[in-house]
């Protein structure tokens, strides 16, 4: 079973829920797909055993074969190629902007002169290790890089479906989240009871409905705001899986990178109960 943990906005406690749920279950594989700002390793302190560089294919033009016909520029939907036409100054040439390339392969496939081959460009790293009896995998996007979805897909290529897979998804509602939650059987949305929390929850719910993924809500710091999140869930028949009240002790544990269940073992049962609730729904 694959469970992802997401939230419309960051800082609601998504990683906390993912980490503590994982630590309360057995036979777990943990994937941190928040590749822009991976945090789970701070709490799980994995021992990394393998590292793989993550690449996307980008075009490389063989100047000798290219006649500057402009076809590659025409087919690239992302303006990642510019062609300087032939003229007085020479036979013309092609410029590639690897940062804009999505690695779709159109240019190399469609170049009439077969002048383009694809070379690997590094976008980040996938690290695999062990943490407290579970398999741990995360991706780290290189600084200055913009293509997080391909890296997320490369983390998720390593899903082991014999295990209970817990995915820490990136925040938001656009491409990176979609790439991360796409394969999940169930998604836990973490929010807090403030106007910001509600606003972002509504958006996240729309995304999951559109993707047809089952989901439920965890309300974190459940006593700091008002009851509008509760009412929204009731009105829309969204199950509330768990409420965690604000607790300075939990905030302190979090700040030091210590999982809740390590110090407050009663939470293990709460997380297990939540897991059982989810299992019943599937």
């Amino acid at each position, binding site marked *: 079973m694959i469970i992802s943990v997401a939230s*419309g*906005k*960051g*800082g*609601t406690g998504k*990683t906390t829920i993912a980490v503590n749920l994982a630590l309360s279950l057995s036979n777990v594989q943990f994937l941190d797909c928040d590749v*822009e*700002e991976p*945090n789970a390793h*701070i709490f799980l302190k994995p021992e990394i055993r393998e590292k793989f560089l993550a690449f996307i294919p980008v075009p490389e033009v063989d100047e000798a074969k290219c006649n500057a016909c402009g076809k590659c520029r025409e*087919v690239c*939907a*992302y303006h990642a190629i510019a062609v300087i036409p032939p003229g007085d100054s020479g036979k013309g040439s092609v410029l590639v902007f690897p940062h804009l390339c*999505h*690695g*779709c*392969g*159109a240019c190399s*496939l*469609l170049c009439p002169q077969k002048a383009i081959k694809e070379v690997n460009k590094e976008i980040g790293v996938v690290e695999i290790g062990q943490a407290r009896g579970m398999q741990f995998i995360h991706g780290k*996007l290189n*600084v*200055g*890089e*913009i*293509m*997080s979805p391909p890296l997320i897909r490369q983390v998720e290529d390593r899903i082991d479906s014999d295990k209970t897979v817990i995915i820490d998804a*990136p*925040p*938001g*509602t*656009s*491409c*990176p989240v*979609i790439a991360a939650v*796409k394969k999940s059987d169930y998604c836990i949305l973490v929010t807090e009871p*403030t*106007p*910001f929390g509600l*606003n*972002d929850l509504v*958006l996240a719910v*729309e*995304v999951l409905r*559109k*993707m047809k993924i089952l989901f439920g809500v965890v309300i974190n710091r459940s006593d*700091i*705001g*008002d009851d509008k999140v509760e009412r929204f869930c009731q009105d829309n028949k969204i199950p509330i899986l768990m409420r965690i009240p604000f607790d300075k002790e939990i*905030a*302190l544990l*979090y*700040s*030091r*990178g210590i999982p809740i269940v390590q110090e407050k073992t009663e939470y293990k049962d709460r997380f297990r109960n939540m897991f059982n609730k989810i299992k019943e729904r599937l």
Partner: protein
Amino acid sequence: MKQIVVISGKGGTGKTILTASFAVLANNKIMVDCDVDAADLHLLLHPHIRERHEFRSGKTARLDKKICNRCGKCIVLCRFGAISDDLTIDPISCEGCGLCSHVCPSGAITMEENIAGEWFISDTKYGPFIHAKLGIAEENSGKLVAKIRQVSKDMAEKGRFDYVIVDGPPGIGCPVIASLSGVDCALVVTEPTLSGLHDARRVIEVCAYFKVPVKMVINKYDLNIDISKEIEAYSQSANIEVAGKIRFDSSIPKTLVKGITAVEGASEAVIREIKDIWKKISI
């Protein structure tokens, strides 16, 4: 004119709360919300929308099964797994690269332009506000950010505004990079947690990569004094000014619930701390 973007790397550190307070403190400015994925600033600024614009960006493939000869070429060649074996295109997976439309021998695939969102020019009691809404499950948030940054810059130059104050997106990827272009100062709001420090460092690396000057704010600094000290030590070693610290204070979520900015309703101590920060970054 000075352009300031408030970012955090990690979400939930109080970035939007601080930005909204600047809307009250700054004179002659334009406010901008570049967190187009999960825009929240409007919940505190209460805009009246004056202009509404469609944001068209990117394309999605459309396959006409009546013309298709079922050769299967598109299924094999699409690198994003967007075309299923029964020749249905999943619009969420489709990245709009257009490869399938170019290779289809029967011309069964056309590329259609997406309406990826909307952007607005609004009035608020604090002055003009430019914001946007990305369509659900849409891509190209970076392009939408670039669009509204451009609009706000043009407007600020024409109207001789003194400040453009931007609530930036979370993370370090394409929307953040788009929000940083041409700014005079990136204010990084962090909190004294190991994750907060970790993420602030990553986003500061991004700023360094694009040569954007950085200042820092430590929010909820008294939640863990040791880590706050660690953050200050880091900022010193990295030669980054800490523009101020804000205490952990339950009056802040209360202002949020009331839909007002922190400087209009939080405790006096918090208001003083925020005013000091604005003084330091506005010069």
